[in-house]
């Protein structure tokens, strides 16, 4: 399974906001148990829907600027960005089928 690409405060604009595809950003941290649980589910999601979306992750500890800009107060949080705009936010660790349902219109 492909490793999910990490984005940073420095690369967020190019990798997420200016991306051609819809991008799901996983806001996470080392110390967050549910974030670790969500990781493998997102990898599966990314692998299956690679034609339509890209999935990336942003460590909120190391990239406080982006986390603050988008008002992150709860992780894991998965935000969908389309054309530079945040179009959907999913809070909490959810199984792949639940994520697919929630992000259905972009998959």
């Amino acid at each position: 399974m492909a490793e999910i690409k990490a984005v940073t405060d420095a690369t967020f604009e190019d990798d997420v906001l200016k991306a051609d595809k819809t991008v799901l950003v996983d806001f996470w941290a080392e110390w967050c148990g549910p974030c670790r649980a969500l990781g493998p589910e997102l990898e599966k999601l990314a692998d299956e829907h690679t034609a339509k979306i890209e999935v990336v992750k942003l460590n909120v500890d190391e990239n406080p600027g982006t986390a603050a800009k988008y008002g992150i107060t709860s992780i894991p949080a998965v935000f969908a960005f389309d054309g530079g705009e945040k179009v959907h936010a999913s809070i909490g660790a959810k199984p792949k089928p639940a994520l697919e349902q929630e992000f259905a219109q972009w998959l």
Partner: protein
Amino acid sequence: MTHQMPDQVHDVIIVGSGPAGYTAAVYTARANLSPIVLAGSVTAGGELMNTTDVENFPGFPEGVMGPDLMMNMEAQARRFGADIRNEDATALKLDAPIKEITLGSGGTLHARSVILATGSAYRELGVPGEKQLSGHGVSWCATCDGFFFRDQVIAVVGGGDSAMEEALFLTKFASKVYVIHRRDSLRASQIMADRAKANEKIEFIWDTEVIEVRGDGKVSELELRNLVDGTESTLDVSGLFVAIGHDPRVQLFADQVDLTSEGTVQVEGRTSRTSLPGVFAAGDVLDPHYRQAITAAGSGCVAALDVEEYLADTADTDAAEAHQTPKVDVAAG
């Protein structure tokens, strides 16, 4: 008969992976029952995965981190051959002698016995604003979200050990933590209550309930009501952590096994036997009262021993029936 026999029928499937599920796995694996544990796709390890120090689990004089304890339990179950899968059970058919479990990833499993160890889910306040602001200042996981409230004023609702643990953890980040509780005394254990009361960042608001969470896209204030004199007031906070207890997670099988008036799975006396033969329960899902890691582990052990006995008894019955079958055939022919 057109009924198709399943490919493989396992001896026991354990649904859930907290201390109850993993203890049941250790015991059934050591009894050579080759248990399958459906640990959950994102919930493996259960509630303790979101805690920090566990100080009251015997055998750890210095305490143990919740996630470490659970990973140790998992490793111990694996050592004896338990098949632990990060999978969700999405449907259960429990009434026939062979139980059927549908998996979240598709596919079904069959087993002669099932241990329900699905634990409990945190309770919501059920007040206006709570759902809309969930993830935007309203949280159920201090270890996940405390980080985002550095130097801010926040509140915890609840009066039990979980609430005290969250409040104490949050003082590492927040400048002030209000603890809002419906009564004038705590349910929490003495040691946790003393610690919370001694912490200068924590201030208690007694006899009070939260009646509304307000904020424009993010929590900014709570509307409170004093339960003694009925007066209402506003409290400025940027975060609200809800720790008011848990409800047993019974949705998957509530229409199949009997429940108690408290919504937990009904079991027979001190056993783990539910109202259906071959279906057993362990941990928080049957326990409205004690709800400790150690009581859950103990109840997982009980369920494993009950499963062993059940399988031995049904094997005896099957053998006896098989022995009689030829005679029946001869008579019929």
